[in-house]
């Protein structure tokens, strides 16, 4: 199975390390992927606030492109979407096409006038979904050469990966990331903040509110003795990692803790180099403690 890869804008910018580490890990695991040719921005949360119908059109173009690109294989088209916001928006557009007949007609007409067509044959998948439900945890164990023994990881999923359209994990207490990292030897934290909001774009727009939301997550992870926080979303990772100095100034409390992508931890366990995993891009450096090797 070749997955059609939809990285999204953030993975080409602030979330570059997610893109690099995920692709390196997938290559090592033998998961084939091909980037959707000429994909466009999903619209994320900001676009939805300006124009809903056009936001759905943005998502539909990506789905239509994926379908056209994947169809020659004669197999069902599966789009691999690592970014939380993209993942949600694509699922949301699909849901809209299923539920709202009028919306679907409008959208189909617009797609047609742009020379596109979407028949609804795409399934949107998250890499965690693929690792757990397609490859299986045993395959991950097999590929583990440097188990993450003794490393205490706080898995942080973010909002939009399971809410509101959970397709592969529990909405209240998701476990896919925990399972993946546990299979590779890490110890994961049982904590209730796995899907609590990090503030999203509010760290930029209303920092008084946004930064406090991120601060709470960091503080709670630290309090529970986590060595590192693993994320699955470029915006979560950015908020939790890059504002740590500002948070210390604002709230008068140091919450310094490394924040990485789950794929970077997977790569470490699989013996990939720091360069391949984009570790040099982290603001808060992270290395697997010697004791855990």
């Amino acid at each position, binding site marked *: 199975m070749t997955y059609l890869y939809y990285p999204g804008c953030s993975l080409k910018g602030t979330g570059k390390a997610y893109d690099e580490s995920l692709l390196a890990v997938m290559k090592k695991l033998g998961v084939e992927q091909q980037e959707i040719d000429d994909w466009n921005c999903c619209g994320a949360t900001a676009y939805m606030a300006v*124009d809903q119908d056009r936001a759905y059109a943005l998502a539909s173009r990506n789905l239509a492109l994926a379908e056209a690109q994947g169809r020659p294989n004669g197999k069902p088209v599966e789009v691999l979407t690592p970014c939380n916001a993209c993942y949600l928006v694509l699922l949301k557009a699909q849901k809209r096409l299923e539920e709202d007949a009028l919306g679907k007609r409008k959208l189909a007409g617009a797609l047609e006038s742009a020379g596109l067509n979407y028949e609804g044959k795409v399934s949107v998948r998250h890499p965690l979904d693929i690792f757990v439900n397609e490859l299986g945890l045993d395959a991950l164990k097999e590929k583990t050469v440097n188990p993450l023994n003794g490393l205490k990881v706080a898995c942080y999923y973010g*909002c939009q990966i399971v809410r509101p359209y959970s397709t592969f994990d529990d909405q209240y207490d998701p476990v896919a990331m925990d399972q993946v990292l546990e299979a590779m030897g890490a110890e994961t934290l049982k904590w209730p903040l796995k899907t609590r*909001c990090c503030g999203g774009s509010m760290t930029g727009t209303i920092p008084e509110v946004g930064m406090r939301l991120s601060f709470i997550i960091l503080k709670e992870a630290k309090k529970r003795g986590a060595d590192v926080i693993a994320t699955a979303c470029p915006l979560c990772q950015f908020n939790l990692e890059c504002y740590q100095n500002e948070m210390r100034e604002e709230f008068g409390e140091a919450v310094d803790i490394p924040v990485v992508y789950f794929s970077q931890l997977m790569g470490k366990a699989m013996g990939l180099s720091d360069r391949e995993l984009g570790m040099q891009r982290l603001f808060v450096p992270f290395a697997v403690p010697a004791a855990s090797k």
Partner: protein
Amino acid sequence: MYEWGRRRIKYESELDPAFCQTLIEKTGNDSIRNCIQCGTCSSTCPVSLYMDFTPRRLVAMAREGFHDEVLHSFTPWICASCYSCTVECPKEVKITETMYAIKQMAMDKGVHPARFPVPVLAREFYHQVKANGRTNEGRLITQLFLKTNPFKLIKQSKIGMKLFFSGRLDVIPQKIKNITQLRTLLKAVNGNGGGRAHS
């Protein structure tokens, strides 16, 4: 005319009975009618304590036709779209979608405070997609601060530099090849929001 921060009695004749229907049409579903005012949304919302009206109150006001109060509220702008309320709501009211619809209406009418960062960012985002088909985070945040509070740009420049030197900031915006197709598509959609944002 609405006046900021001034409470007054609202008479029934001043309510806008069509307001709820407009919201329903914008969200594409009428789940807002099912609300039983239990307040689960407000208690599950991680930012309700920063809002002027809790989500429960805003839903009640929207249904009754408190047109001005709803559109002037800070509540939708503080919503980060985490969907907690939508998931927890026992009556399956699509609250996050309602917040989006209110944001669209407020932007259409231009009733949010000038230089208020959230709509400025949303509009900038909208324009970048139209221009390039993709967004550039560095440019987004620069434009946001230039248009709202340039002082913040200096304050945030440390993070910007760090991002740049770690290779996480694309200086040249990416542009999709078939931008004509995307623009044709967006134009063909009978857009339901942002009259001012289209220009």
